[in-house]
């Protein structure tokens, strides 16, 4: 089968809905968009056994050719991109279905779905591309879609600002990625994965080449996957509709950075310094975001910081060389974070666009389905034994323990913080008493089936996601399925971990006890004592610092934005107005004046014309004859 069909279907949906969506009935628009994502999912599933044998490569054609460099438009479906494709189209389908109900009253319904399909198209290019150029193409494409969807309700200037912020932050990262690609071209003469990676494994280049390419690519990943210092856009990106947050800013796009590093496994194994950098950046991000998450009161903001924190955890895994563990967490995170976002969307829908958890409480009676599924998501992310998050997180912790004890300690701490902020939010939302004076409790309603169905599917996945990669202490025959699946792709493979079984059980005990502490503490505080998060003006000290996100936005603003703006104002007022504009104005005036002088010759008088013509001809004759 031709891989282009996978791409063509979402693109078709984008085209049809973008051009004619306004005229089509809403149901047709939604159903069309959903099915055009669902069909690629089914197609990808049918390719499973084929991909298992060997990667499917499409017929390439020349995309651009400059000198010796020939960049092809070429798709490749191998074991890694198959997993990514299944996540993108599978979760994508669920979120499309969900959006049909969530966005039902929106005027830009058709526009929303055409953007979503465009996003799926670009994301598929990103993961299916067989060279870095295709990856870059998709990388920019998803950035554009992210921008469009964050600013979907662009009538609100704050949302427009958030969209621009996301775009600019991503562009900074893209610059790094682009420089990395240039270096790859310079040293390896190609962008094709197969060529570049076999070249890297074969020919030895100086160490700094590997390190600098790896770091530059990671800068790209920092932007897209919201790592320090470029993470600030992701929490603001919650301005977009909630399904967008679930699809783009939790499950798929933000994991593109992880995909990039896993894809370039050869490179990163050969560049240990770059990998250390990834480890520390991931660790710092994970902790910082978890701390900030403790004091956020917007239900989506908590989830956003949680996403940043979990992405940090994935990068910790990558930094330890645990590529398949990172992919495992990527997959389970996609399940439970999409579930949590959609659940929060359901709450927001039921509360009529209220997002502040201080104004909620006791919703479990009004929205039982949402409550149960949200509970499953919360348990999964906090590491409740034998749910998906438990397995994937423990695998990463195991690798950190093997790497160094203090990294392990900090990671466990971050995992504990996850439990704390998640349960804080969960209890404040669903338990206790209802606290909103402006919106009667009776009006709070459960969401329609179209929204709860995806919740239930995702809840089932969150429950069972661990099956993807069971640790070998549970079962010997089927253990580590994902790691084995990915193994043939890697040249060097995952870093080996040798831990005594007793140590392994001890680590499990630590993880479970951290979970229990978080659960009990939060339950005590918010359910038993019935406390509520304080208002903004009552905060003080560290709480205020956390609620204001360590003032990082303000710091960036005064460090970069303000000076740049001042420079811009100066160039406009002085260089542009007084310099260039004055100069061009002068040129214009001079030419105009000269033109008017010339126009006097064109007097309308034939005799003058004739004389000038004859003189000119005579001059030409004279020059040619006598010179």
């Amino acid at each position, binding site marked *: 089968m031709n891989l282009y069909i996978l791409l063509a279907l979402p693109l078709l949906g984008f085209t049809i809905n973008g051009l004619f969506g306004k005229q089509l009935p809403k149901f047709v628009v939604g159903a069309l968009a959903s099915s055009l994502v669902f069909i690629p999912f089914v197609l990808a599933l049918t390719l499973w056994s084929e991909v298992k044998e060997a990667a499917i490569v499409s017929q390439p054609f020349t995309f651009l050719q400059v000198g010796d460099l020939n960049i092809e438009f070429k798709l490749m479906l191998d074991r890694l991109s198959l997993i990514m494709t299944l996540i993108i189209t599978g979760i994508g389908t669920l979120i499309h279905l969900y959006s049909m109900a969530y966005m039902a009253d929106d005027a830009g319904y058709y526009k929303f779905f055409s953007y979503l399909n465009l996003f799926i198209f670009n994301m598929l290019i990103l993961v299916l591309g067989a060279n870095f150029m295709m990856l870059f193409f998709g990388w920019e494409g998803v950035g554009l879609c992210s921008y469009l969807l964050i600013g979907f309700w662009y009538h609100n200037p704050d949302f427009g600002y958030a969209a621009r912020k996301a775009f600019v932050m991503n562009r900074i990262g893209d610059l790094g990625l682009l420089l990395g690609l240039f270096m790859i071209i310079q040293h390896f003469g190609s962008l094709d994965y197969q060529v570049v990676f076999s070249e890297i494994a074969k020919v030895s280049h100086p160490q700094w080449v590997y390190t600098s390419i790896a770091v530059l690519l990671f800068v790209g990943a920092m932007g897209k996957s919201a790592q320090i210092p470029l993470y600030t856009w992701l929490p603001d990106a919650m301005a977009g509709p909630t399904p967008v947050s679930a699809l783009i800013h939790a499950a798929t796009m933000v994991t593109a950075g992880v995909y990039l590093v896993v894809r370039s496994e050869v490179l990163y194994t050969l560049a240990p310094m770059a990998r250390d950098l990834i480890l520390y950046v991931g660790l710092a991000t994970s902790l910082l975001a978890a701390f900030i998450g403790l004091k956020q009161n917007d239900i989506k903001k908590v989830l956003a910081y949680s996403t940043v924190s979990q992405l940090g955890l994935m990068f910790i895994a990558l930094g330890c060389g645990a590529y398949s563990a990172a992919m495992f967490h990527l997959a389970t995170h996609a399940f439970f974070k999409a579930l949590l976002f959609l659940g929060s969307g359901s709450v927001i829908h039921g509360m009529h666009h209220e997002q502040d958890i201080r104004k909620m409480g006791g919703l479990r009676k009004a929205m039982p389905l949402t409550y149960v599924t949200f509970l499953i998501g919360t348990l999964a992310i906090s590491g409740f034994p034998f749910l998906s998050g438990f397995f994937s997180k423990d695998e990463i912790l195991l690798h950190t323990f093997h790497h160094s004890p203090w990294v392990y300690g900090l990671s466990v701490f971050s995992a504990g913080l996850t439990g704390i902020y998640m349960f804080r939010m969960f209890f404040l939302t669903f338990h206790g008493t209802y606290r909103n004076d402006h919106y009667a409790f009776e009006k709070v309603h459960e969401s329609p089936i179209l929204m709860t169905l995806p919740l239930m599917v995702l809840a089932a996945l969150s429950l069972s996601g661990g099956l993807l990669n069971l640790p070998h202490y549970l079962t010997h025959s089927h253990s580590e399925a994902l790691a084995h699946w990915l193994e043939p792709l890697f040249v060097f493979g995952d870093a080996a971990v040798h831990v005594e079984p007793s140590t392994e059980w001890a680590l499990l005990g630590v993880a479970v006890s951290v979970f229990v502490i978080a659960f009990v503490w939060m339950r005590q505080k918010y359910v038993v004592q019935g406390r509520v998060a304080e208002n903004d003006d009552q905060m003080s000290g560290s709480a205020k610092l956390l609620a204001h996100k360590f003032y990082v936005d303000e710091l960036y603003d005064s460090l970069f934005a303000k000076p740049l703006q001042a420079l811009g104002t100066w160039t406009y007022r002085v260089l542009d107005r007084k310099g260039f504009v004055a100069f061009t104005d002068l040129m*214009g005036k001079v*030419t*105009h004046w*000269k*033109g*008017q002088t*010339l*126009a006097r010759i*064109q007097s*309308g008088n*034939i005799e003058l*014309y*004739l004389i*000038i*013509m004859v003189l*000119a*001809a005579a001059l*030409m*004759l004279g*020059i*040619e*004859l006598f010179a």
Partner: protein
Amino acid sequence: MSALLIVFAAAILVLFLGINKPESAMKWPSVILLMLAGLVALSGVDLATWLTVPESMISYSSMDRLFVALLCGIGALVIAVFDALSSKGSDRLGLMMLSLTGAVMLVGQENLVMMFLGIEVMSIPLYVLAGSDKQNIFSNEAAIKYFLLGAFSTAILLLGSAFLYGATGTLVLQSMTHKASMYAHFGVYPPMLVAGLVLLAVGLLFKVSAVPFHFWAPDVYEGSPTRSTAFMATIVKIAGFSALLRVTMAFEPMSLWYQNAVAILAILSIIVGNMMGLVQSSPKRMLAYSSIAHAGYMLLVLLLVGQAQFEADSILYLYLVAYSIASTGAFAWIEWATQRSGKMDFTMFNGLSSNRWAIVNMVIVFLSLAGIPLTAGFAGKYYLFASAFSIHPLAVGFALLGTLLSIAYYFRAFRFAFADTQESTPNAKFSWVLMLVSVAILLVGCAPMWFMP
């Protein structure tokens, strides 16, 4: 050859059948006949096998046939895009097609006799067309100026031909090449050859309105009925440059000798055309100066003759395609705006921006004239300037500067279109052919390779 016969027969047919019929009755038949002639030229079918014409008089290479197809296509476009004028008789259509016959002859000429015949058959109907608005004093002035200056330049061209005949002993261009290469070998040129060549060049440069032989163009373009102007600005340029290129190729061995003169003429045309275009208050006159500037750009093609790495004729062809489509469109829009507002100066564009389709199409046309990427004008300019740069960087520098200046006056129309929306009539209709023009411009702009032989 077949295309020439079809165009000629069509001209006679339209002239006699349409003598008492309104133009609107003969308009579409003429368009179809011209399209047919163009298609025949493209396909290269020889319909008149019984007719043998000496190769030394007239012959059509595959490149020439493309030029013929372009001529017929543009002729059809000009007829199609303008409203029918007269309700009494279709003689003007017949005259246009007669003039086109001359242009087609000029493209195929291999001989100074045929060149002269082509030029005259092309020009004489144009004198009449310039004055075809008989009651209009401006049209009268245009006709008499065009006629007197044109006849005068013909005389100069003829003297040049006679001198060349005397210097080379032949009227056939191909034989002249041998003589020229002989002289070039020794590096000494007899005065008669030099004088003949200069005078011949003056005659041809007059036809393509290159500075300093351009004086007729603004006055005639402004005074003539707009349809005639569009016809002159396109057909004469295409045929004139084709002839100029043919002559230059014939004297290619002497290229070192004339190169600087050509560059200077090109620079002069570019400067004068663009600077004068900047100070005009009438859009029609502005376009006349713009056509002078375009003639300057196209003169750069002559620098490429004799350079093996460039195909001067296909570069010129692409430029002419771009120029003539956009020019026809521009004149048609000006005519449309004039009829709508009854004004002759730039205020005719006032408030046009509220007519969305019209303004979009108009913008495309003017962008192409200015040479903005993705339009045909850019493709033409790009290939031309990029190739000419290695031969004569200075001239290309002036050409780029001129292009920059030209943007200022092309965009002036938009300033009026967007500035004053008070007197808008958004519902004014325009011909669908005008949409076709914009589509063609974008098509050529996006895929110039399809139009470069």
